[in-house]
């Protein structure tokens, strides 16, 4: 096959390029399935533009990953012998091209295991202990993908390792593999996070999600954490990239609070979970690869519409709430004042409201974002390495952006009555708990 360069036009990154062998992976059935998995579940019911899919996100992650790789492995950007020993030499070393290709393909594959509508209530819809990362790993290692990786001349196990990371890959990571995984899934500025923030912001219209990712990428470096008196390397930045990194962390805060944790988006996730638990055989998605690959948002949406139209079908109430916008409304959210009285304030309000209005009229939502650290190594102009928290005037008070969801929803027809009830009884509910 002639190995030529192919291009995808992308609204975030311009042209995303890949060669003919890499395009075979894009053409594979597991990757094409991502054309039918919404990146942000039912968020388009709140933000109409948020209809983008995992397909283009995965292409974006591949593009950003290789840009990071090229910057951090450039000999001009390596300052320490311990890092020099770790990184394959660009140009002369076959390992350099090998790992570049593995990284790009791992970035493409990292979301292949996603269930329909992405993250929505994954824990409740898969067998205990199984996450979409396990399915991604299984797909990468499957017989179906074997010929693609043979053509690419890379080991599927290496791709799986970098795609799902140490938490979900059963095996040890060398320092080099850890750094490569950080380029994709790192909890400060991995390519996955860079792409989803920019892309979700663009499509939803929540403009706070933007930041200067080009500057950030150009300043990334592999740095030993001398600030912690260890030589173990991490992905960090030079001093000049600090503001770009700060803006990413703030963008993350804004996009979580404005978009991912939007209460209507959250309650639609809950209604979707309720529908799926009724509609799916056994109340869960099958983890058989063939079943997984056949199931996309299209099948689920068809199920929602058919079920909403027929009151006799299981899952009808939840399906109708989605199609007729009869979602539950926020009754109560956690807040620092009430939590100072009682950390379990949301549980207490939920339990008291259940007694008053019945369990069917209420929903409980609790969700924390995946951890993000504002602490990463920064190389100063004099060559020393410091923690970002000591260098950043935005985060130097140690607090940084923080956010979580902890709330109680009530059925729309009971909202007014429940609000009045809560206003009259909240002090008693929380006060009684304190006295207990």
């Amino acid at each position, binding site marked *: 096959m002639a190995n030529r360069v192919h291009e995808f036009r992308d609204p975030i990154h311009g042209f995303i390029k890949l060669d003919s062998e890499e395009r075979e992976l894009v053409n594979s059935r597991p990757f094409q399935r991502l054309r039918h998995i919404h990146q942000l579940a039912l968020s388009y019911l709140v933000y109409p533009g948020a209809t983008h899919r995992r397909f283009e996100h995965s292409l974006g992650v591949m593009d950003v990953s290789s840009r990071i790789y090229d910057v951090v492995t450039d000999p001009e950007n390596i300052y320490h012998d311990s890092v020099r020993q770790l990184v394959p030499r660009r140009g002369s070393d076959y390992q350099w091209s090998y790992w570049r290709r593995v990284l790009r393909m791992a970035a493409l594959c990292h979301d292949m295991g996603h269930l329909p509508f992405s993250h929505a209530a994954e824990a409740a819809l898969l067998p205990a202990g199984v996450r979409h990362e396990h399915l991604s790993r299984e797909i990468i290692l499957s017989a179906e993908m074997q010929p693609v990786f043979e053509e690419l001349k890379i080991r599927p196990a290496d791709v799986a390792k970098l795609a799902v990371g140490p938490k979900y890959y059963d095996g*040890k990571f060398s320092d080099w593999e850890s750094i490569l995984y950080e380029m994709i899934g790192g909890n400060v500025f991995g390519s996955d996070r860079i792409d989803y923030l920019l892309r979700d912001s663009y499509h939803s219209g929540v403009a706070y999600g933007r930041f200067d990712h080009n500057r950030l990428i150009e300043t990334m470096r592999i740095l030993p954490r001398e600030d912690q008196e260890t030589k173990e390397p991490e992905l960090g930045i030079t001093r000049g990239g600090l503001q770009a990194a700060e803006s990413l962390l703030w963008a993350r805060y804004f996009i979580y609070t404005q978009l991912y944790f939007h209460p209507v988006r959250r309650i639609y996730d809950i209604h979707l979970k309720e529908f799926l638990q009724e509609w799916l055989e056994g109340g869960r998605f099958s983890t058989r690869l063939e079943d997984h690959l056949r199931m996309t948002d299209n099948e689920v949406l068809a199920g929602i519409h058919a079920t909403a139209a027929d009151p006799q079908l299981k899952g009808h109430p939840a399906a109708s709430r989605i199609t007729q916008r009869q979602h539950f409304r926020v009754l109560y959210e956690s807040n620092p004042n009430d939590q100072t009285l009682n950390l379990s304030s949301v549980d207490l309000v939920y339990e008291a409201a259940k007694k008053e209005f019945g369990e069917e009229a209420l929903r409980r939502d609790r969700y*924390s974002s995946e951890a993000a650290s504002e602490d990463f190594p920064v190389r100063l102009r004099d060559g*020393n390495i410091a*923690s970002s928290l000591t260098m950043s005037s935005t985060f130097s008070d140690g607090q940084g952006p923080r956010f979580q969801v902890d709330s109680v929803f009530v059925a729309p027809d009971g909202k007014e009555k429940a609000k009045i009830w809560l206003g009259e009884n909240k002090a008693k509910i929380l006060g009684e708990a304190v006295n207990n």
Partner: protein
Amino acid sequence: MERFENASLIVALTEKLREHQSWAGETHLQKATYVLKRVLGVPIEFEFILYKHGPFSFDLRDEIGWMRSTRLLEWEVRSNFYGPSLRSGQLSPTLKRQFPVMPGRYSRQVDFVAQRFGGKNVAALERLTTAIYVTLDENTPSQDRARYINELKPHVSIPEADAALVEADALIQAANEQFPRAMTA
């Protein structure tokens, strides 16, 4: 509620580490929690694997993130260069009042680990807890352990690994004496 009980134990451990002059950064807390669970048998549900600076738990990392977002823990920047420390957050008094059981039940174990980890920096903790990990979690034959640590962490030399193993064996023995039957299989 169980989550708050665990959180209460983590706050107690953080405070005790600081009492013993630990820098109490996230890595210090990770390694101390690992020893609390693996060597001293405290029932904390976090899974540890060998990753950043030795045994590392993604679940604990997420839990520390959640505890910061609920104001149970917070960062403190104490130096112009060195990474941040953790300290009790604004809502920790409420936590201690409402969830005193775990810290009370395991206070001796918390003291044990805080006393031994108090004066250690990240590099020393990385060596010591990696030595414990290869000994207890991987059952590496005694004579191969130093070489294996050096393979896993090339920046730890074999003499450094040897010294860490001596310390790890002593710590495990002291734990066995003070807390018999504590260690999980």
